[in-house]
């Protein structure tokens, strides 16, 4: 078991199974198909992201460095959250980027969705955590990985 401390972007506590994207998470490319075709599990449709392609995003503890891609990113994340297809939490190893921050805030302020978001967990976090591990997030921004 290992603990990591980050900065709280959106407060909350949750337990979920890790889904790890070692490279930047392309929000639009990842959610495009599931949002368009009513897949409630939010299966990742980004063919360029071998780590998570085809895996369900909804309910996962999504571990990532930052998000990349289209500036629709924040809006897409908000939509996924408002439809209940958001990750259980988003855990950023680096300081959050402006698109993901927008998505996290829009989801927090403009929807009823609960999605704790923690950033600046450090490169060690992303090196340690593996897809399938169980992850617990506390309201203080502590991430406990099995």
């Amino acid at each position, binding site marked *: 078991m290992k603990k990591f401390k980050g900065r709280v972007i959106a407060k909350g506590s949750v337990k979920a199974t890790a889904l790890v994207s070692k490279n930047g998470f392309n929000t639009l490319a990842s959610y495009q198909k599931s*949002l368009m075709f009513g897949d409630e599990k939010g299966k990742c449709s980004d*063919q360029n992201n071998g780590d998570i392609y085809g895996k369900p995003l909804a309910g996962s503890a999504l571990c990532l460095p930052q998000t990349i891609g289209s500036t629709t990113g924040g809006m897409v994340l908000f939509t996924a959250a408002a439809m209940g297809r958001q990750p259980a939490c988003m855990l950023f190893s680096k300081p959050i980027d*402006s698109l993901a921050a927008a998505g996290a805030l829009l989801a927090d302020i403009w929807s009823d969705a609960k999605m704790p978001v923690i950033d600046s967990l450090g490169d060690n976090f992303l090196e340690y955590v593996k897809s399938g591990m169980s992850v617990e997030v506390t309201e203080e921004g502590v991430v406990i990985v099995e």
Partner: protein
Amino acid sequence: MKLTKEQKEMLDGKKGAALAKVMQTLVRYGEIFGADKMVPVTGKKGHLVTSFGLGVLKPVYALLDELINEGALSGQPFTADPRPLDDNVPVNPLQKLLFKAMYSKQSDYEAQLEKLGLVRENAFTCTCYMKEVGNTPKKGEVLSWAESSAVVYANSVLGARTNRNSGIIELFGSIAGFVPNFGLLTDKGRKALWVVKIKTTKIPEAQLLGSAIGMKVIDEVPFIEGLDRWLGKKLNDRAKDYLKDMGAASASNGSVGLYHVENLTPEAVESGRKLIAPKAKEYIIDDNELEYIKNTYPCIWKNADAKPKLAFIGCPHLSLAQLKDWTERIEGRGGRVKTRTVMTASAGVIAAFEKTEYAARLKKTGAILSYICPLMFMNNPLCGKMPVITNSNKLRTYTTSRYFTDEEILDIITRGDF
């Protein structure tokens, strides 16, 4: 963050619940990035990234209705990205059916945008900054824009100041009339953390160079040396078109929001190497590096040898000069396209082009002219299954289309095959 009395009142809900939520979002957004205060949006017009009325975006339409119903409208007119549909671009009946289902909320969404402040003419394009469109910010103006290619152009080529905002956040800035002061709005945030040295033996392909830079510097600011050797020291139309394409590739293959080109872009001309931060990293780009980058692009067609069915030229939208240039290039290769070719430009540029003798000449080549967003077109899975080629590194990144250089594309479309 220090807020003025007016801003505090907005936050406290004295100007309505919707505006309070807008303000709460902007304040928290700014606090995440260490903003010290809000600064007024001084640009005359905004620009929105979301132009498509996808049926699934119900939460977005509900949010916009909340704003409209409470009178929380944009204080400034705004343009938006290109429309996803255009009858000029041929589709088969199944593709058409799917488009209808996908973009079922297009007219409703456009009606919402009009209520919020969409400009009345030439509203839809990713190249809103072109003079034929008329949303051209001035140097130093503070903007609340999204659309990565427009943001990087406004910052770099025009010297305006906008962060790389997400959809909806950009609208909030236009509604509030101010944006949190951080990142690319500040002198510190505009310092280059990279020096990129161009050492190619010929002018680098704009879309490849941008891709290489984006992949290397990701979201940091590069100071580009040696490009003036190929583009000259005057920011003329040719240089601007080149930088438009280079910037779009850097913004989509990475997340570049600003670059400086030595002796060429406004801030680089004004401040020169003072823009480079201490201990900036270095990246040398030569012919081999560009070739290497090009070879890393995966081909995700089911059959890599398939005959291309469609070519998209113009992501970002083409300029008037680029449309004329493509007309001449096709004429120089027999005068007919043998692969269905769609050239995309803003309605404003198309209108200006139609007034020139080139319009009839381009029509004669068989190429189709459209204001469509190629990316939105390719988002239709039935279109995405087709072997589509493009000279756009942005389109390559977000869709199944395959990238080729301008010269290669010209070769393919005039021959009809590889």
